């Protein structure tokens, strides 16, 4: 019984994001320090960024993963992002790209305040958990030489 409960909790948390932000510092257009102690995993990160149930990058960005159909094109291709940006720069762009450009349509994946009329289901939560952010960065850093 306990095992079942903990599995449910873990899977819910994977979609729900965080309810409290871990502190982070923005330095020179990036967030140099990882949000978590556990190093990002590129394999899990690929699952995170392609998760259709949680605001996948593919809604807006073309990506070099032809096994997933129907990539959006509202936003620049992510091919080669690992060459164009450092992990610190990617971290800030995922956490809150509006720090760099208030007019961007890129959602803030790790922010809790400053929104209007967030649905009850998502209220008080980040899109990604801190670990999701780190896993996503680890995967995106493998997309080199676009």
């Amino acid at each position, binding site marked *: 019984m306990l095992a079942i409960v903990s599995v449910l909790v873990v899977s819910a948390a994977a979609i729900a994001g965080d309810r409290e932000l871990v502190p982070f510092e923005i330095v020179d257009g990036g967030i140099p320090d990882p949000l978590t102690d556990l190093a990002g995993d590129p394999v899990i990160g690929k699952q995170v960024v392609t998760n259709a149930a949680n*605001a996948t990058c*593919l*809604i*807006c960005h073309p990506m070099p993963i032809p096994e997933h*159909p*129907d*990539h*959006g*094109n*509202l936003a620049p291709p992510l091919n080669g992002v690992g060459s164009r940006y450092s992990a610190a720069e990617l971290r800030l762009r995922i956490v809150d790209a*509006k720090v760099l450009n208030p007019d961007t*349509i890129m*959602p*803030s994946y790790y922010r809790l305040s400053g*929104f*209007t*009329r*967030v*649905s*009850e*289901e*998502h209220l008080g*939560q980040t*899109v990604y958990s801190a670990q999701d952010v780190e896993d996503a960065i680890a995967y995106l850093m493998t997309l080199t030489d676009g």
Partner: protein
Amino acid sequence: MLAAPLAPAATFAQGWAAERYQVEDRKSGYLYLGDQTQALQDDDFLNHAFFAVERGAELWSAVDGAAGVSCASCHGDAAESMRGVTARLPRYDSERDGIINLELLINRERERKLKAEPYAYESEDLLALTAFLAFQSRGIPSEVEIGGAAAPFFEKGREHYFPRRGQLDLSCTQCHDERDGMMLRGDRMSQGQTNGFPFYRLSWHSMGSTHRMFAWCNNAMRAEPYAPASEEYLNLELYVAWRGRGLPIEAPAVRR
């Protein structure tokens, strides 16, 4: 299997020239569809929405409620009496001191004239009757009144359209004005025009109203939707109808 085309006074979409789907920079959602989906709308025998139109025609003439009358008892042949009505909706209504749309007008008539219960918003019967009535205006350019008493409500609708909403923090205009034609996953973003409503949405396998579509968009932004028939959606419906001014009514449309 096939729904019979009804109301010979209405113009059939089949064979419309491409320019009828665009007025100045305002483009019908039809122009953003793939060939196969366009073909479904082009042929009233293939268009799933005609099951709703057919049902709506039955409801129009069906006696319902304590007064023992039907819509047709007073309004007669809808092809004549209702031609053009939908093209001028929604509109200001002094009794509500607010905006009224086709759905709410039908329900008010049901309560007052038929002495019948109002239909639930988004019910199959209300979608059927709105589809039937909107179809009577097919081909007539949409032209809603935004001046006079409607002006403050129009302004509220306009003010609803531009702010960002929800956890994903997006506004109507960022997608429907600034990025129409681009791909949102597998869907081509349209301008969000409403001249085809109520419509048959393939991904829903059902008919839908403008207010259901507004709520769908809000949910996609992870924003709390408003209730169907809320003042917010009625005002937005007026603004969005004005945004598409001049586009001929093409209800019932088919969309992805």
